[in-house]
Each structure stands twice: as C-alpha cells, then as structure tokens.
C-alpha cells in the first residue's frame, strides 16, 4: 500500500502561536479519513499544509510530492472543497463547467452534467442566483467529476441544513468513492460522518490525540455503565473519562479486558462522537490515556 499522505513532525506557527505541533500522520490509499477536532485545534492548518496553501515546518509528502514546491503537479491529482460558498458569485453555471473542463485534464464533463441534471440548478443561472444548498451541489458536481486520487473536504457541509448534509455524504459515497481514491474530511459534526469513515484522527491543541482505523475502535474502547455497587471497582480500572447522568455513571476505557468490564455492568462500543467528547474534555484532570496508547 502506498501512503497518500505522510507527515513527520508537521508544524505550523502563526506568529508565535503553534497551531500544529509536530504531527505525524500516515494515510493509505482507499481510505476515508475523518480529521476531527474542536475549533482552533489545528485541523484547517493541517489541511492547508497538505493542499500547499500554507507554509509549514517538518516533512510532508502528499502523493509523494512536497506541497510547498510541487503544488502545481500535485493539484492535477488532488482536489478539494475548502468550504462551501467559495464559488465565485458572478460565474454562470455553464461557464463554471466549461472552465473546469478547460483547465482540468481529469474532468469528466458528462459525469458533471449528469449530476447537475438531477438537481434544480439551471445552466443559465449565475451562482449568485442559487441557494446555498444549490451552490454546494454545483461545487460538488464540479469537484466529484474530477478524477483525483485524493479529495480533501474541509467542513464541506458548514451552514447547510440536514437534508443537504445527508445527501452530500450519500453522493460522496455512491458516486465518488472507490478503492483508488482517498478522502480526507474535516468536520465538527462527528455524528454525521462516523458511519462513512474508515479511519478517524482526533486532533487537539495541534497534536494528534487519536489515530485509528474504525474497526479497531470497538476493540480498544469500551463504554461501561457499571451496575450498582460496582462503581468503585470500575473506577479502580482507571477509566479515562466518566460522567454522571441521572445518578448513573458512564465510563470510557481504553485497552482494558472486555470480559473483565462486562462483569461490572452494561458495556457497549462507544460512538465516535462519545469518544470525541471524552477525549476533548478529560475529567479528573487525567490526561487522555490514549495519547500514549496511540
């Protein structure tokens, strides 16, 4: 397997503030990776470094190329949606299609037009006449018709309503993704993408807090609701997170024996959203155990 993205000691400084502090990262081909973190955690800086939109320190290779010096080459194989609503408002839909077809050798016009035909977007409209959802659809139609090895999506559904968000990810999976392609997506709406991800990376204060394939999460992490009387025994096993609702505790464990935990109460695999919340706000002042584990 070739690494699509490989970073070692990736750092980014903004005039004294360290947005990214020595991130190591490896993304293999054919994965859908969620880069998840609170606002200001360094997600966008990592994305911008990968896309050659910003300078950085450390080693970073994307498709074997250095985004700092080989960006022009890189952009033939990488495409991205950095945010919704960055399509120029003055452009006509048909002109936008013509333009991308004109400059991108990997653009499949028919694919794009088929996609647009399934929407209410009129070819003669200008972008400024479209609703926000339609602009996203147009952007998606343009980008997903490009045969790229890496697609990067930075908060692609920000400000869209639920219906559009849902169909956005459906389109992504059904029309675009295949084993030769890799998708890197950032969002803070974890619950919406956890079902489509193959890998998840948590980033916090410019550091990687968790980097794991989805299928290993259920093995590593257990969410336990201890039966009455077992609370102290459960705590002795050092959960990295605990919270009380309606007088009942819920705990999260990393790398503990499942059988041992099952004896103490109800267990289940935590959702990515649960893990995210737990790792971003560790209680008891305990540093998240997963940092060492990962």
């Amino acid at each position: 397997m070739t690494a699509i993205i490989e970073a070692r000691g990736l750092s980014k400084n903004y005039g004294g503030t360290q947005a990214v502090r020595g991130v190591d990262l490896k993304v293999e081909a054919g994965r859908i990776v969620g880069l998840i973190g609170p606002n200001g955690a360094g997600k966008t800086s990592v994305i911008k470094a990968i896309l050659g939109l910003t300078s950085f320190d450390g080693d970073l290779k994307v498709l074997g190329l250095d985004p700092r010096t080989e960006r022009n080459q890189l952009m033939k194989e990488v495409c991205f949606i950095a945010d919704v609503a960055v399509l120029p408002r003055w452009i006509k839909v048909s002109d936008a299609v013509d333009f991308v077809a004109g400059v991108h050798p990997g653009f499949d016009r028919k694919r794009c037009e088929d996609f647009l035909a399934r929407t209410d977007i009129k070819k003669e409209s200008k972008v400024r006449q479209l609703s926000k959802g339609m602009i996203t659809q147009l952007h998606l139609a343009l980008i997903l018709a490009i045969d790229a090895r890496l697609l990067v999506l930075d908060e692609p559904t920000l400000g869209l309503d639920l219906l559009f968000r849902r169909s956005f990810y459906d389109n992504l999976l059904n029309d675009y993704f295949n084993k030769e392609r890799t998708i890197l997506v950032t969002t803070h709406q974890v619950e919406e993408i956890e079902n489509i991800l193959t890998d998840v990376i948590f980033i916090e204060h410019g550091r990687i807090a968790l980097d794991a394939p989805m299928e290993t999460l259920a093995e590593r992490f257990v969410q336990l609701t201890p039966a009455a009387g077992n609370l102290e025994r459960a705590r002795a096993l050092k959960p990295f997170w605990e919270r009380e609702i309606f007088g009942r505790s819920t705990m999260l464990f990393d790398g503990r024996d499942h059988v041992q935990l099952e004896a103490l109460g109800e267990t289940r695999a935590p959702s990515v959203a649960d893990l995210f919340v737990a790792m971003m706000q560790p209680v008891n002042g305990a540093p998240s155990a997963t940092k060492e584990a990962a």
Partner: protein
Amino acid sequence: MNPSRNLLWLIRREVWEHRSLWIAPMVMAGVILIVTLFGGVHFNDHGSFWVGTSDGNGPDLRALSPEDRERALEAMTPKNKSIMDAVVLGVYSGISITMFVVLGIVVFFYLLDTLLAERRDRSILFWKSLPVSDGEVVTSKALTALVVAPVFVTLLSAVLLILFAAVASLRLAQLPVSPWNAGIWFDLQVIMLGFVPMMVLWYLPIAGYLLVVSVWARKNAFLWAVLPWAALLLIEGMITQTTNVAQFLGNRFAGFARIIGDNTHVDIDSEHGIATVYGLMGRVYGDYHIWLGAIAGLALIYAAVRIRRYRDDS
C-alpha cells in the same frame, strides 16, 4: 497540462468577472455616437466643423438666420485640402484619445482589484483547487490588462471612427464637407500599431505595482496604492523641500512625452507623416527608460506571483 490552453481559459475568466473592462469602452463609444447623432453642428470661419456638443467651434448651424446660414456655408467650403484634413485628423485623434483614456481608467482599477477580489469573495479557494499555477493566474491578469484590453479598445476605436464618420455624414449631408477620410483613418491605425505597444511597455511598471498592491492589500487597495506616494511627496516637501518624488512619478506617467520632446507638430497627411511619427516613437523605444521600466514591471509581476502563493485572508 497545456499552459497556453490554461491561459486562454484564465483570460476568459477575467473577461467574465471584470465586465467593466469591455463594457465601459463600449458605453463610451455609444455615448460618442449618440452625441454625434443628436448634438449640434458647429463650424467656424476657418472652415472647421464639429458635430456634437458645442465646444467653442462656433454657433450651431441650426440656430442661424437664412442669410447667416448662407454666409456660413460659404465660409465652410474648404479653402484647401490640408485644413479639412487637419480637422478630420483632430476629430479622429480626439475620439481615439477619449477611448484610450477610458481604457486607462478601467485597466487601472482592474489591476488594483483583480487579485484582491478573488480573496474578498474567497473564490481563491476554488481557483486554487484547480491545476492552474499562481504564475498562470497572475500572467493571465497581466495579459488581460496589457494585451487583451488594449487590443480590444484599439479595434473598437477603429470601428467607432467608421461609425462616427457614417453618423456624422448624415448630419453633414447638406454641407460641402466630409467627415470620412480613409487615408487618415488608415494612417491612424498604422500609428496605433506602434503607439499602443509603446504605451503598454511604458506603463508596465505601474501595472506591476498595482498587481502587487492588489495581491498584498486585504482591503482598500486604492488607498494602499496611492497613500504611500502621497506621504512620500509630503515628507520630501517638508524635509528637503525638493521634488524628486514628484519628478519620479511624473516621469513614470508621462515621461515618454518628455522623450519625444516639445517640438512635435507633425502633419501626418504629408508625404513623410507616418515616418515622422514613427521616428518620434523610435526615440521612446530607443530610450533606456522604457526598457528599465519594463524590466521593473516584470519583476513586480513576478513578485505578485510569489505573494499569491501563500496569500490567504481566511
């Protein structure tokens, strides 16, 4: 990837986005034609005429009594060919200069805005997601301003002169004068072939400077472009009481006129008219100032490419 194909698409994009580049000259052409169609017909005792608004060339023909009108027409009958030719040349030049002034204004604001606009509406994130390099983007903008727009206005002016002559002919149908002179029209176009590239080369450093301001400023590009020079002018005036900055700016804007010199009255309709004009322009082409400026302009355009690489307002 084919760079010239990319450039063509990028230039097309500029034409879509910055419509004032071609609309403003067309509006001006339309205004000139409308004024010609509905304005007064003026004349003076020397046999000059002017179709359009009054500009001191004499009373409106329509306002005269029959006797005065008769006398005026007699005076207007061209006494000799060279007076008529001078009148036609003056009118043609005036129209062309007006068009190029409009071009200068729209290109000035275009260059100031073009690299800022794509960051202001954040569309830079879309453009940067496509395989077009910063060099291609900035080059397309420079070419739009310095080649596409000037060629368009040159052609538009040539057509406008023909339309003007046609409309003016209607207005002057009863008079013994003609606003159409194919020889002068042709001569003017031949002169433009040398003159337009000369102006483009001369203004290249200013264009490069405006692109740098455009790519660098986060807003208020106009102020960033103008204020530093105004400040320099003031500071120099207060401290050393010299005018070096003013002279430098004057040179950058109109130095070619100084190189041509004052004694430049040319009768282009004379046998050697065109050669004489080209001789004068040759002085500018032969002067190191134009080439020094052009090199500085290219360096500034290159600087704009480098700055766009990591320029990001988000």
